[in-house]
């Protein structure tokens, strides 16, 4: 018999807003992501100075996970949460910045702090470090949001006992254009985890 899974909570971050299940948790008139992300960080009372060293993709993923997992009150014995993230632009925004920083041969000072973020899955590492997750994780690159694959893969992780919960999502950032949609799924919850519900939450 097929097990059913549920969405415990979900969140969207885009267009200077943080939205969870149709409710706006935070909104801003800021002109750029750097300002907006700092406002979100402060609004939700986050205290993690390493946040300011992250690239924008990691900041976006970090904030989504931070808000979603805050209510979970995790401790190390019950934080069996797999992470599955995906996007379209990989780490191209940071790759581009890094390439620019090394393009002038007369002024060639590659920045280690920028270079470390030239992989998209670094944002999974940042979330794992913050929440002490030693779990399964994957980062996929797709042409567009792919709920069919992401729901199926996340449910596979639950069905096969790889984790008790899965935090999966779409975290896209490229040159000030961004969209994060993340959800936490498990055997508990009120909203069924299916493509129809996910598409509805994604477009809210």
């Amino acid at each position, binding site marked *: 018999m097929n097990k059913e899974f549920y969405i415990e909570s979900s969140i969207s971050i885009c267009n200077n807003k943080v939205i969870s299940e149709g409710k706006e948790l935070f909104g801003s008139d800021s002109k750029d992501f750097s300002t907006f992300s700092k406002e979100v960080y402060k609004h939700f009372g986050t205290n993690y*100075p390493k946040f*300011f060293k992250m690239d924008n993709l990691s900041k976006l993923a970090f904030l989504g996970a931070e808000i979603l997992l805050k209510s979970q009150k995790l401790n190390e014995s019950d934080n069996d949460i797999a992470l599955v993230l995906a996007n379209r632009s990989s780490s191209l925004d940071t790759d581009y910045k890094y390439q620019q920083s090394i393009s002038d041969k007369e002024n060639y000072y590659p920045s280690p702090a920028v270079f470390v973020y030239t992989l998209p899955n670094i944002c999974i590492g940042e979330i794992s470090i913050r929440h002490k997750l030693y779990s399964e994780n994957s980062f996929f690159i797709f042409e567009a949001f792919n709920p069919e694959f992401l729901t199926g893969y996340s449910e596979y992780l639950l069905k096969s006992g790889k984790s008790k919960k899965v935090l999966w999502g779409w975290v896209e950032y490229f040159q000030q254009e961004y969209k994060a949609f993340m959800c936490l799924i498990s055997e508990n919850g009120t909203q069924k985890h299916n493509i129809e519900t996910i598409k509805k939450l994604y477009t809210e």
Partner: protein
Amino acid sequence: MGNLKEELKAKIIETLNLEDLSVADIADDDALFGDGLGLDSIDALELIVLMDKDYGIRLADPKEGRAIFTSIQTMADYIEANRTK
């Protein structure tokens, strides 16, 4: 020397994105790593780049960094003695 130390503090805050710190929060003898400012290994690499870019100092042996980057005072002492810019 006093100006150099204040300059270094401002540069470190900006380069290493230490958003919650101001120049006044950093004492000349505060440890930069460990229990002091809590810098990490990537920060150490950034400091090596900063020494090269802004003061023309290339550290041939990264192990030298351990002593040089002990505090703002040790950094300033080393820069004063070795700067080419």
